[in-house]
């Protein structure tokens, strides 16, 4: 069975500081990995996705993520956080043929201090 673990429920960083959100997954085949962001009262927006190729993927809003098969991880990073990045972030793993049936982590809430 596939599963996703986001170890950090809540993270607080100062504006301008770097950010790393952790994601570990369990999947029986080659995973299709995603990061989504959910701002308060909004639906989810796709930040980036990985299926194959370069293990460092670039996304929107200056985010990137690195796939590490040996560690079963897909951590999200941003070099300099902006106040508007405060939101909840979800990692998900699924099959290429049906990304919508992905399994989602419980999310990490990011607070940005001025």
């Amino acid at each position, binding site marked *: 069975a596939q599963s*996703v673990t986001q170890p950090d429920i809540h993270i607080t960083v100062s504006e301008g500081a770097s950010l790393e959100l952790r994601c570990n997954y369990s999947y029986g085949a080659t995973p299709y990995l995603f990061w989504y962001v959910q701002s308060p*009262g*909004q*639906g*989810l*927006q*796709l930040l980036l*996705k990985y299926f194959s190729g370069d293990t460092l993927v670039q996304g929107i809003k200056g985010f990137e993520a690195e796939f590490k098969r040996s560690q079963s991880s897909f951590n999200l990073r941003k070099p300099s956080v902006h106040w508007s990045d405060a939101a909840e972030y*979800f990692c*998900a793993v699924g099959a*290429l*043929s*049906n*990304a*919508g*049936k*992905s*399994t*989602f*982590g*419980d*999310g990490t809430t990011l607070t940005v201090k001025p």
Partner: protein
Amino acid sequence: GAGVSQSPSNKVTEKGKDVELRCDPISGHTALYWYRQSLGQGLEFLIYFQGNSAPDKSGLPSDRFSAERTGGSVSTLTIQRTQQEDSAVYLCASSLALGSVAGELFFGEGSRLTVL
């Protein structure tokens, strides 16, 4: 509209009543998904529609939950005899399936259901 539209945005109901939640996907998107997001939890897959194929209902938590999609467009999620544990945000997403590859999911803003 340009995005996925869901209604109502908020619904408060009494235990035992039936509720209907509506999703209007992006025009031309053949795939439509329903999810449930309980407080402090990730998304729980409920049901998936793809074109004219039979829906994948494998995520529905009980037979009180059902969904239909009329004309390959608008979908309605129905919860019968609501229970307090049904309180959650119900999210709808659509995508343009590209052959065997699912395209990017576009989410609506959700319908927040509160069962008293």
